[in-house]
């Protein structure tokens, strides 16, 4: 994976709670065997009309967010099925950061395995980020989020930070360093 440093981008506001992985990638695309190319199916049923035309009222189709790499989501994002295809689709589409008040557990873990940084923030901060029109800067090294109306630090489990910062493949890394992770985690407990 590419090392994760700083991402500065306009953020796409997805104003829905309990977005489950079937909304992120509908079941009909789970049959595909390859791991790449899922971006085109991201939020498929919300994004396209029956005939395959983009739905104008869906936020991903708003040209203002065309190059967005940060997704703003709401409570319990990624609940439901454990399909990792959901994260593959977000990644393939171009999202590298997802900010929400809470994430479903398996989804949260799957993000790190694929170079996406999920960040949990308070309701109050999320509201501010939803209302900003400026770009949002996320710096993993300093664990900070900055926008015109927000400047905060966020928490992240130490081993996940290390994996993303160094662009380590989780599997390869855990193979080599599992004991180090345990002791690192112990000494950096949050």
């Amino acid at each position, binding site marked *: 994976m590419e090392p994760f440093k700083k991402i500065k981008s306009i953020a796409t506001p997805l104003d829905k709670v*309990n977005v*489950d992985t*079937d*909304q992120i990638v*509908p*079941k*009909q695309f*789970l*049959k*595909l*065997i*390859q*791991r790449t190319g899922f971006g085109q199916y991201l939020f498929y*049923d919300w994004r396209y009309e029956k005939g395959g035309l983009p739905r104008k009222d869906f936020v991903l189709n708003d040209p203002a967010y065309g190059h967005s790499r940060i997704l703003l989501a709401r*409570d*319990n994002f990624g*609940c*439901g*099925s*454990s*399909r*990792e*295809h959901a*994260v593959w689709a977000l990644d393939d589409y171009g999202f590298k950061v997802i900010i929400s008040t*809470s994430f*479903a*557990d*398996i*989804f949260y*873990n*799957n993000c790190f*395995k*694929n170079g996406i940084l999920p960040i949990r923030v308070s309701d109050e901060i999320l509201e501010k980020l939803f209302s900003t029109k400026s770009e949002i800067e996320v710096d993993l090294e300093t664990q900070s989020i900055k926008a015109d109306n927000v400047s905060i630090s966020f928490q992240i*489990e130490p*081993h996940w930070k290390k994996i993303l910062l160094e662009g380590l*493949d*989780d*599997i*390869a890394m*855990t*193979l080599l360093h*599992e*004991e180090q*992770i*345990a002791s690192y*985690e*112990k000494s950096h*407990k949050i």
Partner: protein
Amino acid sequence: MLNITEKILARASGKKEVSPGDVVFVNVDKVMVHDVSGPGVLAVFEKLRKKGMTIDKVWDPERVWVAEDHFVPAADKISAQNIVLLTNFTKQFGIKKHFKYGMGQYGICHTLSHEEAMVLPGEVYVGGDSHTNTTGALGAFAAGLGHTDVAYVLLNGKIWFKVPETLFFKLNGKLPDHVMAKDLILKIIGDIGTDGAAYKTMQFGGTGVSEMSVESRLTLTNMTTEAGAKSGIVEPDQKIREYLAARGITRYDEVHGDADAQYEKVYEYEGSEMEPIVAKPFSPENTVVARDLSSVELDKAYIGSCTGAKLEDLEAAAKILKGRTVKIRTEVLPAAMSIFRKAMDGGLLKIFLDAGVVVGPPTCGACCGAHMGVLAKDEICISTTNRNFPGRMGHIESQTYLASPLVAAASAVTGKITDPRDLK
């Protein structure tokens, strides 16, 4: 002062004790993939191969098992191809426990996990499916993982977990006859919300749970996923021992919590106060008592899935349907062939057919809206399954109400959502 989950994780990681929040590397006892997560894992293997890793064996083929459940009978050409992929995988890696569609016992993975006793008390079990939690009812630590994590376990036999906090749900006294475990778990999810147990274990106990059958307990743990839980668990007891003995298994190493085990929080429910509960669209937390929905007209009743098509679920539905006929399209899909056979031997299939119900083969198909009877736009279904998100069982503008098999069967008879007590 450790609870059962902490003790299992401590033992599996070679530690004397662990506490919530600790990160532990555990040895995994069993791992499962199915026809969606299997190809997903193989895609991860491909990625690793491209990076130069050699992948020609799994850590222990005896501890890996495979189910074909989501897209069987093959829904189309691609799903047929996925089954071929899965078959080649198990052949190549020497995995013998592959439950194949059309070759004797097969069914939904979470149902096979207990029907075939693939997982035993005290074990650490992971699977490439979010409802892997189900099997915790046997007294194991059971959790779902993403494809990358499953790939890692297949190669190394280990995985790390952060030891979860445990919420303890205590049921005092038996549930009334018209109330099932499904009603209790819906009630709990309605109370704590769909992220009420996020990254926590939900443990069930109390006299009401001790009196519950193993299958009822499995309904409880199955839907812990819908509260965001990492795992669900029940302490093993004589009922579990008998259940496993009936499957020829008597040797395993049970784990029990200490008498002074600690829980983050204890919730108490009085069995006698419980009522039939239904979760309205579009969330399992959207619960009300069934009687409040008696004006909701339905298009379909679905009795299927790992949640609601075990033998006792079918028996409950048959109790209602005996001598009656259905007013709406109704499907019963036993969750495994072993259950299908028991339903046949016990005369349940005749009751279903006499009532006008279609009986189909085990599959996840319609539960996840993939195939085998999906919903049309605006159609409304009452279902014994576990999720009712938008589009879960078909069209994005269809609706699913989650209910017990008793409520689903009573509703099939009247065509409206019906509390079984109100059936004439």
